[in-house]
């Protein structure tokens, strides 16, 4: 019995661990081929990560990634592939920044101002994802295709069209929305972190959105595991036919999942909108949506797993900077590592799933054998 628990734990932890080891091994080979010393590169990366300022960088990187990962995971839980987190967070960030710096909203007191901005971001994200949901439910268009097309339409169409209207014309050459007033910004968490560590230097500021990310993570966990709708989500994901027979309307589930996923996606860009930059501009951070999908896959759609994945990716992103400085390896190696980790993680999870199934079949067979021994031959009334 004890051994089987050990085996199960080993299987659960083993897969992601194996993926990382595999990625390190493979990228070491790549580094060797390209004439770098992998040992130097990895020790530089680890040494750098032990600094407090780097730790803040990693958290700052991981925060939007985590939210993005949760957004993707909500869809994945019911086999719905929201590839459009990218477009959803960009269009949400744009509208949030535009509304936050316009009309009566500007004069709101601090907590309300931030609340309005968050609300706008979530609604716009949900609406944009809802378009894909509606197209799937009413017209049968696959969500992968439609969300990808909506990404392009959001950035090249809607934002390009409206950015001109909301452009800050106070003379700055940076074409973005009017920067938010101080009341529309979240304070940094430096002082909170400093109570347990030394003073944070080099002008690093721990983003206040970290708290939102934690709330989203806990909320996601509770929603999926503790609510009825969350149960319906999981049921639809495991077996849509059975869920339908059990009274779960599949179309409504798809709409709910897309709306919820989009609403969370809307929060991804907040770390920049609610920061010192306080605006949406042409140079707004891109690519977090796609990396969020990767993080969700590594974390197996589990709130803690996604956090580990986001921190890992955050660590890799920050590492590219130190590699650039020390020159011990080309910084682009971290991009390859991200790709390898994702691909090997999904393969490793599948292998583990197979092993588990086999284990289950074996233990079931053993159990049946034992019961066969204890029950008389003519015992056809075996309790079910």
């Amino acid at each position, binding site marked *: 019995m004890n051994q089987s628990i050990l085996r199960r734990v080993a299987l659960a932890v083993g897969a992601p661990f194996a993926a990382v080891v595999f990625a390190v091994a493979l990228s070491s080979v790549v580094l060797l081929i390209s004439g770098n010393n992998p040992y130097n590169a990895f020790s530089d990366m680890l040494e750098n990560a032990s600094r407090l300022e780097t730790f803040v960088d990693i958290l700052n990187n991981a925060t939007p990634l985590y939210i993005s990962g949760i957004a993707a995971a909500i869809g994945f839980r019911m086999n719905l592939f929201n590839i459009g987190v990218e477009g959803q967070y960009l269009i949400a960030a744009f509208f949030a920044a535009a509304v936050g710096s316009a009309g009566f909203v500007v004069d709101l007191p601090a907590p309300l101002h931030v609340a309005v901005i968050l609300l706008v971001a979530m609604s716009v994200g949900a609406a944009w994802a809802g378009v894909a949901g509606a197209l799937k439910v009413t*017209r049968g268009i696959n969500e*992968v295709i*439609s969300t*990808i097309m909506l990404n*392009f*339409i959001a950035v090249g*169409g809607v934002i390009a069209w409206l950015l001109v209207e909301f452009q800050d014309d106070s003379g700055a050459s940076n074409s973005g929305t009017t920067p938010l007033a101080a009341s529309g910004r979240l304070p940094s968490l430096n002082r909170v972190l400093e109570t347990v560590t030394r003073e944070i230097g080099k002008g690093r500021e721990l983003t206040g959105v970290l708290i939102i990310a934690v709330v989203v993570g806990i909320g996601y966990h509770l929603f999926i595991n503790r609510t009825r709708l969350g149960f319906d989500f999981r049921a639809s994901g495991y077996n849509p036919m059975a869920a339908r027979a059990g009274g779960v309307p599949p179309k409504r589930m798809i709409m709910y999942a897309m709306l919820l996923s989009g609403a969370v996606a809307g929060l991804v860009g907040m770390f920049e909108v609610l920061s010192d930059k306080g605006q949406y501009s042409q140079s707004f951070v891109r690519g977090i949506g796609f990396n969020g999908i990767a993080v969700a*896959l590594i974390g197996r759609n589990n709130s803690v797993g996604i956090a580990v994945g986001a921190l890992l990716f955050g660590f890799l992103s920050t590492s590219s900077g130190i590699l650039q400085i020390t020159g011990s390896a080309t910084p*682009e190696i971290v991009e390859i590592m991200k790709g390898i980790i994702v691909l090997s993680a999904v393969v490793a999870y599948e292998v583990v799933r197979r092993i588990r199934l086999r284990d289950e079949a074996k233990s079931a067979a053993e159990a049946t054998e034992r019961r066969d021994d204890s029950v008389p031959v003519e015992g056809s009334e075996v309790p079910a």
Partner: protein
Amino acid sequence: MTDVIATPRPADTPEEGGVKGLFAKYVALPGPIRWMTAAALGVLLLSIVQEISGEGSSVLTEPGTSGAMLRFAVPILLAGLGGLFSERAGVVNIGLEGMMILGTWFGAWGTVNFDSPWAGLVCGAIGGALGGLLHAVATVSFGVDHIISGVAINILAPGLTRFLSDQVFSDWEGGSITQSPRAVGLPKFDVPLLAGQGGSTSLLGELDDKDWFFVSDVAGFLEGAMQSLSLYTVIAFALVPLSGFVLWRTRLGLRIRICGERPEAGESLGVNIYLHKYIGVVTSGAFAGVAGGFVAMELAGIYREGQTLGRGYIGLAALIFGNWRPGGVMLGSLLFGYPFVLALRDSTGLGTRALLLVIGIALIAVLVFSVVNRKWTDSIIAGVLALAMLIWWSQSSTAPNWLPNTMPYATVLLVLVFMSQRLRMPAADGQIYRKGG
């Protein structure tokens, strides 16, 4: 892609009259004639709109446009044909985009390194095929969800090419971490007699100069398509009948297709399902790689980071639009490639504005068709959208500058809104197959 419901098409009775009967007769025509009719109708529509819109909208059918239309259709076409091989073998390939990215890099690398565009074409195919192999290992051997594996490849590919650029292109003259030195494509030629350039007389050129309504437009359109035609484009379009032949007329094709329809049945007949799925997916990657090579060598003349612009996904949309058949994929790629041309050539926005009218008229056609077939939801959607397009067209004098860049993606969505439900994908497409399972 389990949401496309397989509804058997009702048997069309040839006796029916009216629009319905006409449509039934059209469907019964042989493939090539059907596509040519559709293309002619398209040009007719464009030339009518051009007459109405007048000044500046000649970009819709001028010779340069049709040549560019073919060129911009090629990457979508090749990606779509790639998807055809993969999905006919039962593996959904969302990783086409990533394989295409590999194709752009390896295509440019091969061209510059061996100083030959042919080498570029081959290297692009190999690069894409490697991506396909990765997808096949993950989905066929390890049974990973097809979409998850595809997404992972799409994440891996840009990182890999960036790394490779840093390693290779940065050291070359004219190259950097985001781009390669110039990589020029295959030789170009004019089709003799029919098309000519720079004062040389040609049959179609003469007709175009006559300025007859429609006839001249068609001639101009055809001439443009035959001028300075790249061999690469010819090869791509030759792959359409070739793919059809391989998949529907050879033993190999039958075996690939059974993997996508009934793998268990195939296995019981002794077909090596895994092997044929591998063949389908690796071929798919090679096609996507060739598509990427085309984007780098022919469209841009250089490898540049992020230059695929989602064309791999649009190829998938063309595959869906084309009902998982090569001819349909070709039509879809021409349809979805056309807006890309306008984005490039229509600097005044007048042509794009005229395109609004084209879309409006096309929607009215859809409206009529839906009403005849008593599809009321389709009719309402088509009617509302048509009205919106016509109002937009009549109230504007030129298209806003963001519209041309959005048009390709909006067109895909618009077309799928009316098409998605009439299609039938391979029965076992997207399902994970286990030997003896």
